[in-house]
Each structure stands twice: as structure tokens, then as C-alpha cells.
């Protein structure tokens, strides 16, 4: 057999970056305020990636020298990783500086995510906290170049045996048991109305609002939007109980369903 170790691999992933919302084009004022903010928490901002949001600025019809802004940000210690809400000219400048343009999330206002579950759908504006998720890899693409993906719910009635994998682009509902060594994945929520012994990964494309529901939790691993727990970390109290699992401030919460 030929050993074929891959050269590279593409994976869908999300990472978090602060967003800088500009209300003025006064570079001196911007620089001064930035230094003030950085002095409050120097370690937090040091070498931090930064998303630049120009929507407020453009609402005020203020012009901006984009390359000057990028230079300023780098000088202060940020790494600009993209812009959004820019006009045509600003997008062009950003592209010249090799900065990606975020087009997906141009709609809607930032909403702080609460405990309420929100259905993630590409056609709807995404719910986003002040810190927005940026999809990676992301190319500077033309607006509306991303076709909406139809998220389908998959229903499985047969047992999922060891070694089997199920993937749902929407929600995944399983009526039978999921054996140890099986892997079930969904971009949305996962429901298992039986014993869950395998691995369950919900919100695999970064939907932090996704949840896992199961009738009897004995999983090897549970994960929501990349945050995971192995069976070793599972609380004995919720083991073998009907539970729901959700994400709160990057922590997986396992709650018994009474």
C-alpha cells in the first residue's frame, strides 16, 4: 500500500475577533481613543485580529482614507482581518490591501445573544454578539456569491452502530440508540430519543445556539460549535439521564430534562 499523507486539508471553522465600529473619520481622535482603550487592557488587545465595521461611518457619509486607517491600526498593535459595511470604494481599497470583505452579515443590527435559541439560517440575518464569528477560510468574494444552503432535517429510525457516521446539514433526529464508536453530526440541533453512547457533535459549522437533546446520556464525546466534553468530563449526576446540552459563554451546560 502506498502511504499517502495529505499535503493540506480544508476545514470549515469559526474564530472570534473584536469588531471596531467607527463613528468618525478623524484619525487623530481614533488613534487617541484606541490608545486609551488599549491601556485599560493591554494584553487583551495586543496582536488581536480586528474586524472593521464602517456602517455607522457611511451612514454619516463620512469619507475615510482606508489605507491610512489600516496603517494606524497596525501601528497600535492590531491585525485588521477584514471589513464590513463598506461602500464600493472602501471595498476596493480593502481588496487592494488584501483584506477580506464580509458580505454575509451586512444586514441587521448586532444583537447580544441571550439564552433563547435562534434558528441559524443563511437567508436570515445572523444573530451576533458584539464579537462576531468570522468564517474561515474566507475569500474576498462578490456580494451574493454565496448560494443559500438548504438545511435539511434528517430522521433516523434505525440504530446507529459503531463505526457509522451520520451528517445532517440541518437538525438530526434519531429514534434508536447510538452505539459507542458511532459519530453523529449536525449543523443544527441533535435529538436522540434513546441511549446516546457514541459521539454527538451539534452546530458543527459554528452555530453556538445549537443544542443536543438525548434520552439517556452515556456519550463518548459531546460537542457544540467546537466546544466539547469527553465522557471523562461528564458529570456523574447527569450520566444515564435525559438531558439537554447547550453552550453558554463557551461552556457546555448539561441540564437534566425533568
Amino acid at each position, binding site marked *: 500500500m502506498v502511504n499517502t499523507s495529505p499535503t493540506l486539508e480544508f476545514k470549515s471553522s469559526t474564530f472570534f475577533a473584536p469588531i471596531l465600529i467607527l463613528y468618525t473619520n478623524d484619525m487623530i481622535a481614533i488613534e487617541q481613543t484606541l490608545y486609551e482603550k488599549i491601556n485599560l487592557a493591554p494584553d487583551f488587545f495586543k496582536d488581536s485580529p480586528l474586524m472593521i465595521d464602517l456602517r455607522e461611518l457611511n451612514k454619516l457619509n463620512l469619507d475615510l482614507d482606508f489605507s491610512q486607517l489600516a496603517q494606524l491600526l497596525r501601528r497600535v498593535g492590531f491585525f485588521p482581518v477584514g471589513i464590513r459595511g463598506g461602500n464600493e470604494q472602501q471595498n476596493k481599497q480593502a481588496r487592494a490591501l488584501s483584506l477580506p470583505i464580509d458580505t454575509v452579515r451586512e444586514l441587521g443590527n448586532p444583537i447580544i445573544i441571550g439564552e433563547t435559541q435562534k434558528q441559524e439560517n443563511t437567508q436570515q440575518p445572523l444573530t451576533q454578539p458584539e464579537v462576531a464569528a468570522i468564517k474561515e477560510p474566507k475569500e474576498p468574494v462578490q456580494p451574493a456569491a454565496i448560494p443559500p444552503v438548504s438545511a435539511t432535517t434528517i430522521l433516523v429510525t*434505525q*440504530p446507529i*452502530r*459503531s*463505526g*457509522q457516521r451520520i451528517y445532517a446539514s440541518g437538525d438530526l433526529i434519531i429514534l434508536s440508540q447510538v*452505539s*459507542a*464508536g458511532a459519530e453523529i453530526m449536525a449543523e443544527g440541533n441533535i435529538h436522540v430519543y434513546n441511549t446516546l*453512547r457514541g459521539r454527538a457533535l451539534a452546530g458543527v459549522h459554528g452555530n453556538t445556539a445549537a443544542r443536543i437533546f438525548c434520552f439517556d446520556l452515556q456519550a463518548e464525546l459531546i460537542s457544540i460549535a467546537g466546544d466539547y466534553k469527553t465522557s471523562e468530563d461528564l458529570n456523574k449526576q447527569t450520566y444515564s439521564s435525559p438531558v439537554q446540552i447547550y453552550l453558554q459563554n463557551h461552556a457546555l451546560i448539561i441540564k437534566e430534562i425533568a
Partner: protein
Amino acid sequence: MARIIVVTSGKGGVGKTTTSAAIAMGLAKRGHKTAVIDFDVGLRNLDLILGCERRVVYDFINVINGEASLNQALIRDKNCNLLYILPASQTRDKDALTHEGVGKVLDELSKDFGYIVCDSPAGIEKGANLALYFADDAFVVTNPEISSVRDSDRMLGILSSKSRRAERNEEPIKEYLLLTRYDADRVKLGEMLSLEDVQEILSLELLGIIPESKSVLSASNAGIPVILDEKSEAGQAYADVVARYLGEKLPHRFIDGKQGFLRRLFGGRK
């Protein structure tokens, strides 16, 4: 049309060949013309268990390659004239098995046999995959220990996704559990998984429990399928398995539990 049975497990050494020989003999003894095929190419064992190793001239691979006819390769059992053995080749490996070749042999056998028992090799590679591909029924042989149970679970996944029935979207392979080398005393001591533990993971229709028995090894060494040893517990257990497979309702034996335990186990099951 013959009914094709695959005896499979994933894990090695759990008793697939012993089971194949026993149930093939059991079916033949009950008047069904039965063929048993050794799919373990390169590690030929079935002929030893059935005591026909000195009569092997041609084998399964010869038939697949067209070097011998099926009638030349089939060996009639000396204890039962309704049982025929198609031995594996010892000098080749699993790559000698081809999809078309196996399909052709099974088609031809189907014409005048009632049952065809396919003795699967261990593992989940080509030999095992081809042994189960054409099956109608699967006997999943499992020992009461966790690694065997997990491997059986994996095998069940393959049975439900990689068989001809699955590919053609036909009624799925009927899967049965055969719990072998079961030692009720060790189960009581907590050293061995109980039937209940195994069923919690596999949840299959139980065809029978074969107790750990010294008679299995001596029967294998003598080349006489253990089912012919009617005095032994293992022999009786295999006879029960065959009867249940053919539709008889028999209570399960050799679990050696209390009556309450039994009722709890089977009372609620459909």
C-alpha cells in the same frame, strides 16, 4: 431459491467456524439441503472442523476462477448426505475473491440448495464484506466481553449499509444474536458480561446462548461438528438455535438465572 446465511462477528476467535459447521449440520439433519462455504481464504479451517480436510481437491477459488466446476469442488459430508462443504483455498489470499465470482457461485448453489451458510473470516475487510454482501440472514456471533460486543456492533453497521439488500433498498438482512462461550458462573461473579448487558448494546433477536463447554474443543479436534454430540450442552444449544431459526418457539436455556430474571428479560420483549 436458497436462503443465504452469513455467520459473522468482526472479532476473531469467537466461534464463527464452530457455529457455521454446527448450524449447517443442524439444518441438513433436519432435511434441508445445505451448503457451507469457507470464506476465510488463506486460513482454511472449516474443513478441519467438519473432518473433511483429507478429501479437499478443488476449492472455492478454483470455482471462482473457472478451474473447477462447483460439483467437483463440493464435498459431501460423511455424516449427513444433505450437507456439502465448499472449502477455502489455503494457498491464496482474500484478494482472490471477486464480487462477480462469489455472486456467480452463490447463484448456482441457490438453484438446488435450501440453505447456504457463509462462514465469514474475522475483520471487516474484503473476505468478510463479500461473505455478508449476498446474505439474507446474519448470525452475529458474540462472546460476552466488551471488545467482542463492540466489534459485533460495528459488523451490524456494515450489515445494514454494505449488503446487496441495503444497496438495492430491499428488506434489510435479518440479524440474529448468538452468544457463545457463555459462562453463567462467571457472569454471576461479575467477570463476564451478562446476556442483559450484551442486549443493552446490541438489542438483537437472540437465537441462542451457547455455553462454554469442553466438548466444543474436543469435537473440533475430532472433526465432528459439536451439534452431533447430543449429550453436550453446546450441542444441545446449537440444536435449539437451528430449531428457533426454523421457527420453533423454545425457551432459552443455559442462562442459569433465576426465573424472575428470565421473565424480566423476555417478558417485555416482543
